[in-house]
């Protein structure tokens, strides 16, 4: 086991170009041993490419990859001691579920009975105990995904690389599996890189969150940091079930208690729908354009008189109706400030 003071995973200026187009443009990233890093980013940002680079499935064109203190840049995948779930839930089509899960152990010469035992346990952990004798062709999408996860979890590698491992699971199963993942990671003490676009998953599971955009890291920080102090408008809007409202700093919404010096024209203010106060007086006036009900909550989209639309979360019970005239208010502490040109966060002056 490597000394605990070295990073679980470190990328230094990593560039990669699958299909001859550069996708990762020099990433620097350090993940501590035992840390769970969630990678977020829009479709096509390079998240899968990043995982493949770490796994050794994608060659780097520059930079270096270190796992548990070892430089693995030149090593083949098998020598990197990583475990991976592919976004496509790849499985061996000719092997049964149990054989698929046990594969990694058996090729590493774990005695067959031990391998089967551990594989059975791993399958059970993701709720696939009843499927062990099926082949991948006989599984539903979610079942296949869980088997792929079991495949990755059955070993105890230095780094787990999970590419949207829960995307095909329902909420309940997802919560369960998440807990399972967290427990496993804590037990094994392995570093984990987890790609997802489930906000809740990212927030709940991640020790830190890395936001990737077009092959460049926009921000890396704890969920709280990323949520509360998004480094850019991109990060700000990217997180949240309904994106943060971004408006010109000079109106029409003026956060209550804002220093006027902050609200200059080349800036933008941002605030999340969750913190918007909808009232019938006081604030920027507008008309409710659309209301989406999501369980106990509802999102009201208010068309302000000044032009922009603001989303606001309200209780589903007693929500405003479409066409209602409302005012939009927000407090200065809940408001973020960005440079309108660069999109960079401005720490209040």
């Amino acid at each position, binding site marked *: 086991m490597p000394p605990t003071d070295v990073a679980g995973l470190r990328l230094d200026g990593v560039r990669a170009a*699958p*299909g001859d187009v550069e996708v990762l443009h020099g990433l620097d990233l350090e993940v501590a041993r035992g840390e769970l890093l969630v990678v977020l980013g829009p479709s096509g940002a390079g998240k899968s490419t990043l995982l493949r680079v770490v796994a050794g*499935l994608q*060659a780097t*064109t520059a930079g270096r990859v270190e796992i548990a203190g070892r430089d693995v840049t*030149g*090593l*083949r995948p098998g020598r990197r001691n990583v475990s991976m779930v592919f976004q496509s839930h790849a499985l061996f089509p000719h092997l049964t579920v149990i054989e698929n899960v046990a594969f990694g152990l058996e090729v590493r010469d774990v005695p067959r009975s031990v391998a089967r035992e551990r594989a059975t346990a791993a399958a059970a952990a993701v709720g696939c105990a009843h499927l062990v004798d099926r082949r991948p062709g006989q599984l539903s999408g979610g079942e296949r995904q869980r088997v792929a996860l079991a495949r990755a979890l059955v070993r105890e590698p230095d780094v787990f690389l999970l590419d949207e491992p829960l995307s095909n699971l329902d909420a309940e199963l997802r919560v369960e599996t998440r807990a399972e993942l967290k427990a496993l990671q804590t037990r094994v003490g392995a570093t984990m890189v987890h790609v997802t676009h489930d906000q809740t998953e990212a927030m709940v599971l991640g020790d830190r969150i890395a936001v990737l955009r077009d092959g460049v890291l926009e921000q890396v920080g704890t969920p709280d940091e990323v949520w509360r102090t998004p480094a850019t408008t991109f990060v700000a809007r990217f997180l949240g079930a309904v994106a943060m409202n971004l408006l010109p700093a000079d109106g029409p919404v003026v956060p209550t208690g804002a220093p006027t010096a902050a609200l200059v024209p080349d800036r933008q203010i941002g605030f999340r729908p969750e913190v918007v106060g909808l009232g019938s007086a006081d604030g920027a006036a507008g008309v409710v354009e659309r209301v989406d009900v999501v369980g106990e909550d509802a999102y009201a989209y208010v068309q302000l008189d000044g032009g922009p639309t603001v989303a606001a979360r309200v209780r589903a019970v007693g929500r405003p109706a479409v066409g209602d005239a409302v005012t939009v208010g927000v407090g200065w502490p809940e408001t973020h400030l960005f440079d309108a040109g660069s999109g960079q966060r401005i720490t209040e002056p």
Partner: protein
Amino acid sequence: MTDGPVVDEPMVDEPMIDKPMIDKPVVVERDREHRALGLMLAPYVLGIVALVLIPFLVTIVMAFADYDLVRAPSWVGLDNFVELADDPIFRAALSNSLLFAAIAVPLRLVIALGLALLLHRRAAAVGTARTAAMLPYAVPEIAYGLLWLWLLNPLYGPINQLLRVGGENGATVLGRTPPQWLTDPVDARAAIILMSLFTIGETFVILLATRRALPGEVYELAAIEDATGWDVVRRVTLPLMAPVLVLLLLRDAILSLQISFVPALVVTDGGPPPYSTTYLSLFVYRNAFEYLRYGYAAAATAVMLLLTLAAVALQWRLVRRLRWLGRT
């Protein structure tokens, strides 16, 4: 590129054998290890290459010599080729071979493909068909020759007997005389092609396997879009099977220069006169073994070889078209 793990990119310069199903490139072992493996297998590869190339080169060299298998060869430069160009028998053999290849090769492939596409779905049919397809291989080609002779006998052969059913005075129902398989030049050539259809079994089985290995999903996609039989074949099946199809086409084209050998020798003996079914292979055989003009035969072989290369080149163009089929 660093000295890291190498990931092969899809080989774009390789239209023939492609991996239509592969989305992600294949990981290879580290270069170093690969080199070791290569080194280990080198003598073996060399041996095979030598086994393939030596006889081949000898043939080429012999094409420029006079050699009767007894006396030492004597160099004659291009004489053999000059003589070939003037040899009416060679010209007949050449055009016979080309005609045969032009008709039999596509015909065989189309029939085999048709059967494969027709039968790939039915388990029972597949098993039976596969067995039937393999049967001809269990009987030596030369023994078949004799059977064909009997089958094709213009008077007593069952094929013509059958054709004559219902007809009068030894004519078919349509009033035509049945084909004079062994004596009419055109009919004899047709007979040889007919015989060559026999050995489509292997092609059929390979196509069957290929078809069955195609992913079912794309056919579901096509089914939902109501792509009809021909559309599916043209836009989905053919492009996806293209690598194998081209491979078989290539092989068949090459083999076709020889395949007609045994039937032509045993059944028609190169006739009807003068040389209706004298194919290049028979020409080579006769010159080499009957007339002991080995150098001359080697020159003819060299021509066959050129033809083969031409066929390969042609196929490369064809594969491009096949792939384009799926796009239009």
